[in-house]
């Protein structure tokens, strides 16, 4: 059984600057922030390493961090742009009985995170859901399609983003409410 501090040290030794920060000061679960371009390698290490043995991915969640940058336009109005999206990986090791939360932060403009489907098969549907709801694209995912929403849902509309607006039309039909 390892604490999140120890797990952070192990990851830091192995991956260096790909591991950004350990966030411990807020309740309840501490998490480790990593760069989105190396999640597959990190996941593979977490899964295979004999000290860690994270054999179970409890849940993978896509989150809109709702932190857009305010810019003043020339005419005095303000507009919002940018911000980040996050993927949270909640991992658990059945043999060693320890947990860790990994968070990968990616830009909202072009959200791209490496898929961990090859490490934990259960990530397949979770990643599809994160793509469907928050619009995070997962590199090397075998079948990144919508899962809960209809396949013909508007390509650039992701309901769990904080700036989501209810559509007025669906497939040319007026939505009456």
């Amino acid at each position, binding site marked *: 059984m390892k604490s999140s501090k120890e797990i952070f040290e192990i990851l830091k030794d192995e991956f260096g600057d790909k591991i950004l920060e350990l966030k411990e000061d807020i*309740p309840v679960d501490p998490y480790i922030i990593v760069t989105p371009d190396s999640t597959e390698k990190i996941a593979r290490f977490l899964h295979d390493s004999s000290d860690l043995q994270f054999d179970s991915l409890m849940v993978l969640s896509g989150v809109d961090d709702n932190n857009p940058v305010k810019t003043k336009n020339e005419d005095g109005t303000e507009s919002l742009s940018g911000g980040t999206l996050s993927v949270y990986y909640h991992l658990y090791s059945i043999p060693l009985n320890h947990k860790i939360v990994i968070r990968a932060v990616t830009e909202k403009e072009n959200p791209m995170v490496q898929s961990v489907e090859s490490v934990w098969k259960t990530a397949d549907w979770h990643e599809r859901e994160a793509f469907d709801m928050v619009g995070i694209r997962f590199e090397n995912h075998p079948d990144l399609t919508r899962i809960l929403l209809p396949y013909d849902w508007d390509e650039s509309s992701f309901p769990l983003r904080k700036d989501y607006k209810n559509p007025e039309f669906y497939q040319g039909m007026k939505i009456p409410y």
Partner: protein
Amino acid sequence: MSIKTEHMVLNMGPQHPSTHGVLRLELELNGELIVNVKPHIGYLHRCFEKHAEAMTYPQIIPYTDRIDYLASISNNFGYAVTVEKLMGIQVPERVEYIRVIFGELQRIASHLVAIGTYGLDIGAFTPFLYCFRDREKILSLFEMTCGARLLYNYIWVGGLSHDIHPEFVRLTREFLNYFRPQVEEVNQLLSYNKIFIERTANIGILPAETAINFGMTGPNLRGSGVKFDLRRNDPYSIYDRFDFDIPVGDGRMGTVGDCWDRYFVRVLEIEQSIRIIEQALDQIPEGDVSSAIPKRIKPPVGSVYGRVENPRGELGYFLISDGGLNPFRLKVRGPSFVSLSVMGELCKGHLIADVIAILGSIDIVLGEVDR
């Protein structure tokens, strides 16, 4: 000489009597053998997570009822435990005991549906009626307590909506005494039935390693022989005080991790739930059930992942709070959603008729798959 043949695609559902709801399975067939199964879900999507972001914390509880509508109390339980963990609320002893009793009664009720409908899928109609007869009695106990038979809104953050009825303890004991022999009846009718065994043993074998990698939990994981139960391995509430066994599949009728094992783990779990309820009824203290309910639920900034052992497996809530009156993000990890993703893997090489047996054995509730 071998003749090259094209695979045929067959749609099963969305309206199919044995898919337990609205689910479409796209079967790729080579003759009558399954090459691949692709589930298409989302027909029951009700935007739970989007709704939750616009609700206050207590308002979300009735919505959690509807995630897995066959185990509503367990969903309330998980949500309450998660929010309490973030806020650091200690609930009174009496509340803990009532929660455990209701959680386990709900587990029995839910497993009875699973067992009954599984028999129905395979073609045995009678056990279904026996199971539902007994389930009704449990629902009556719930109705006596909170007035509802299916969607209870019973377990609140910090407490319960009502205290139990003065007669509840006596009637529950009476029910358990009546119900214990009925489990044997189900075994004689269904579990050891030759036709049932022929249909389920050695079908849909799920090895332990694959099960863990696919994130299977609950009876589906234990059916593969993994002794893992959140009530024991990551205890929440007061489950560490009770004495109970964790049944696992042992390949008695065929191979470890086949449909029969997954089915039979549920039967055995009913007996363990009875044991837990009896212990809890003996120990239940007096007290107030609403003293710890906060006037205003406003958790601190932070995030928490709470998980509980639902009848169908690990139900997890990932809650991010920004310190406001409604959650910043509430993600639900439904056990059925995860279990369904293993369908393709389980069905490969089996016959079409076995798809029904396999789907029934992983016991999904579409309300929870789609949320």
